[in-house]
């Protein structure tokens, strides 16, 4: 791995760690004692410090060290986790991110001259941490005593705090009543044991029957506690009692020195040897297979209904049983659990491969070509009329389709990760504005093309900031008008007919249509005599230069308006819809195509041309009877089962008439987008088609109604229609007759 790649890996690791730290901090805000989260924060800082050290990024090491120290205190219970501390830690998390960014941006390894401002900010944070420290525990003199007490309480899981045991094995043997009858002589085991080392002491404990008269001289009532010193390992010692297994409860507890050895072995256990906790302990020799199976047996007795999701509790239970059973010491179990968790994490990481996005992009391009070629083969075969090949071509088609779906799937990621980053936006900005806002995220598992997610983040951030800044009222105001003091911003994502829909909904003040209108008139966007529907008025906020908030706050109103949001989304072949009820809230709905590269299309012919309609938007195809259609001022309507449906004749729109076909019947393709429906009248229906979207290039970029082009199997080019844009054209047509001029591109 060269230095650049290593650095890149470092940056990515830091990003992940900081993300998990942030998640943990959120958790700590609600439950400050959550050990898991405390550990996560500590681990994040600790790991960044470690890796930063490898690269020699001293400022990172210095800074994270301070946080790590504080977290260590908190983790061990010597310091309480306070809301204030969580706040500072949030800042520290950001600063760490900034540091890493700055250092990595500085590029060369030696050049560590950082922006003094940045370092100053770091120092201030450290000061804040320290100030909180001394202030929090109420005087320096009290602190050490507290610390000691806390150490005794909380660090008991660490070996150094365990009561010092003798450096000997402790062996417990409880023989069953039938031991003698089964030919067992406990003494012989002890004699054999003595040959392996020194028996330091033995306590012989007979457990007599409750009524002494029930004593049976042929039954065994003996138990032994043996203190044994030996260099033999646990397995060898356990083997002594091999034959007694059935008639004797055997416990072998390793001496302190062996414990340390086990701890070390556990830490060094290679990942591929990490399986179940019991097996790990057997592997390092801390546990014998017999002890394990005994524990597992007793576990089975207690829990019959172990399901997969129970795995975690099950593991803990096995640990408890083993400790209870006296097979291992708690400290060892702790380490085993830790090692196992760490390894699981690493294995989890191994389950994923980082792939350069460019390679994926290349793959998808190639798949696109493959789709086109396979269509070409089909055409050739049909043309040549080779019957035998049809089946083969079908097979290839099927495979190509599978490959296409899988290739596209590779780039799909759940949107939840990027939505959850808004929690931070909401937290920070609501604090800043003194508002109480909950962000509710639903549908986070909805998958979306990664490239789309990246491009949608900015508009979404903007919309959420708008909701916080403009929409949600202050707690006092909300109380006055009888709303809950805490406002809610709802972020929802779901799939809908080949599209992904993202909704940002707030329960704030809603949009003031009158003010929007007034502003738009002042800016000359509409004339005072224009009649606009409520919806049309609201949509004016998507026009450039319209911000209804008079004072630009820190958060929004920085000139990046809703027009940019709309433009960004439309650039992704998506659309935005807006609903707002004064006083009730606003809902912005973003509709995006699932992917940018390949779609299932529906091929139609109109005039001399062929067009592709995204199949997901095709709702039905019907034959048009000329008597059902009406034409009013250039607007076409068709009576579709009693419903009035506006339609566009593609031949008219693209002025591509084909005189020969003039008389033949026409078909109506009903398409839908969002809640709207529109009819497209075409000459022929040519069927489904895998469509590789080729951008039209800068020359035709602004062409409305066309999303791109695709190459057909015949080598011909077909335009891909953008249904929602066509609808807009239809509407505009209706308002201003024939403003657009579409020539058929050849």
């Amino acid at each position, binding site marked *: 791995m060269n230095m650049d790649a290593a650095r890149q890996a470092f940056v990515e690791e830091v990003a992940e760690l900081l993300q998990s730290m942030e998640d943990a901090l959120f958790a700590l805000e609600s439950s400050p004692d959550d050990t898991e989260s405390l550990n996560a924060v500590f681990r994040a800082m600790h790991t960044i410090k470690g890796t930063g050290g490898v690269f020699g990024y001293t400022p990172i090491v210095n800074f994270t060290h301070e946080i790590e120290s504080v977290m260590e205190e908190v983790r061990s219970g010597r310091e309480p986790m306070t809301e204030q501390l969580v706040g500072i830690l949030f800042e520290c998390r950001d600063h760490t991110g900034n540091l890493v960014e700055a250092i990595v941006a500085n590029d060369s390894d030696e050049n560590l001259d950082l922006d003094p401002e940045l370092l100053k900010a770091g120092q201030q944070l450290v000061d804040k941490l320290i100030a909180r420290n001394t202030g929090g525990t109420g005087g320096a003199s009290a602190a050490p005593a507290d610390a000691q007490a806390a150490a005794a309480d909380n660090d008991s899981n660490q070996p150094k705090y365990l009561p010092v045991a003798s450096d000997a094995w402790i062996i417990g043997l409880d023989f069953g009543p039938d031991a003698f009858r089964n030919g067992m002589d406990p*003494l012989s085991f*002890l004699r054999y044991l003595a040959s392996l080392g020194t028996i330091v*002491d033995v306590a012989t404990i*007979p457990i007599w029957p409750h009524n002494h008269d029930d*004593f049976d001289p*042929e039954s065994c009532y003996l138990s032994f506690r043996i203190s044994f010193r030996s260099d033999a390992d646990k397995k060898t010692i356990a083997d002594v009692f091999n034959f007694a297994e059935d008639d004797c409860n055997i416990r072998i507890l390793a001496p302190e020195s062996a414990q340390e050895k086990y701890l070390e072995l556990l830490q060094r256990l290679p990942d591929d040897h990490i399986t179940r906790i019991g097996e790990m302990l057997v592997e390092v020799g801390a546990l014998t297979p017999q002890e394990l199976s005994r524990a597992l047996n007793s576990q089975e007795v207690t829990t019959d209904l172990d399901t997969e999701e129970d795995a975690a509790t099950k593991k803990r239970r096995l640990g408890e049983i083993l400790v209870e059973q006296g097979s291992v010491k708690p400290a060892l179990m702790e380490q085993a659990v830790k090692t196992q968790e760490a390894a699981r994490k690493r294995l989890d990481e191994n389950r994923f491969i980082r792939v350069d996005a460019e390679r994926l992009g290349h793959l998808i391009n190639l798949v696109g070509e493959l789709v086109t070629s396979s269509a070409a083969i089909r055409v050739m075969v049909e043309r040549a009329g080779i019957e035998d090949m049809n089946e083969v071509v079908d097979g290839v088609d099927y495979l190509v389709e599978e490959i296409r779906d899988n290739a596209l799937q590779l780039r799909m990621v759940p949107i939840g990760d990027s939505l959850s980053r808004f929690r931070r936006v909401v937290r920070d900005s609501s604090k800043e504005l003194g508002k109480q806002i909950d962000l509710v995220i639903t549908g986070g598992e909805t998958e979306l093309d990664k490239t789309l997610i990246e491009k949608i983040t900015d508009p979404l951030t903007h919309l959420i900031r708008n909701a916080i800044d403009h929409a949600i009222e202050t707690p006092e105001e909300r109380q006055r008008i009888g709303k809950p003091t805490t406002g809610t911003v709802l972020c929802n994502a779901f799939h809908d007919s080949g599209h992904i829909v993202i909704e940002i909904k707030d329960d704030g003040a809603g949009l003031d249509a009158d003010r929007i209108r007034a502003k738009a008139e002042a800016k000359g966007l509409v004339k005072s005599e224009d009649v606009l529907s409520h919806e049309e008025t609201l949509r004016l906020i998507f026009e450039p230069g319209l911000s209804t908030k008079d004072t630009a706050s820190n958060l929004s109103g920085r000139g990046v308006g809703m027009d940019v949001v709309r433009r960004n989304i439309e650039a992704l072949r998506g659309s935005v819809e807006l609903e707002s009820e004064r006083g009730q809230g606003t809902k912005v709905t973003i509709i995006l195509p699932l992917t940018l590269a390949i779609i299932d299309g529906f091929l139609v012919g109109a005039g001399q041309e062929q067009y592709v309609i995204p199949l997901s938007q095709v709702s039905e195809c019907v034959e048009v009877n000329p008597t059902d259609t009406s034409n009013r001022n250039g607007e076409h309507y068709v009576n579709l089962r009693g419903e009035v449906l506006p339609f566009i004749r593609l031949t008219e729109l693209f002025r591509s008439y084909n005189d020969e076909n003039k008389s033949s019947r026409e078909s109506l393709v009903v398409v839908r987008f969002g809640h709207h429906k529109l009819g497209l009248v075409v000459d022929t229906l040519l069927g489904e088609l895998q469509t590789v979207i080729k951008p039209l290039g800068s020359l035709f970029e602004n062409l409305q109604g066309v999303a791109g082009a695709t190459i057909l199997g015949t080598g011909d080019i077909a335009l891909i229609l953008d249904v929602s844009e066509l609808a807009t054209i239809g509407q505009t047509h209706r308002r201003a007759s024939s403003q657009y001029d579409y020539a058929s591109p050849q």
Partner: protein
Amino acid sequence: MTTDQPTPSADPLVFDGEMTIYSATANFQRLRERIGKRLPIQIDLSAVTEIDSSGLQLLLYARAEADDNGLDFSLAGLSESVTDVFNLLYLNRTFGISSATQPETSA
């Protein structure tokens, strides 16, 4: 035979030969009789050639019964095999044998 036992009222109980699981029941019966008669429990082990866990258990039982019934308990004449076991299990304390007297055995 040991003679230094301070129990004039009865002869010591003599276990000899193999004090193992095979003789456990017989030995136990003899012990029960003695306890039933509330005689002090004096046991002569000098002729024990072999002792196993059941034998040892019987001695422990005798010790416990003696305590429970308020009877005197003493062991006399530990054979080598008995001494070995007592040493192995650190049982001399339990049976009131000082480590000084422990090696002193009569065969």
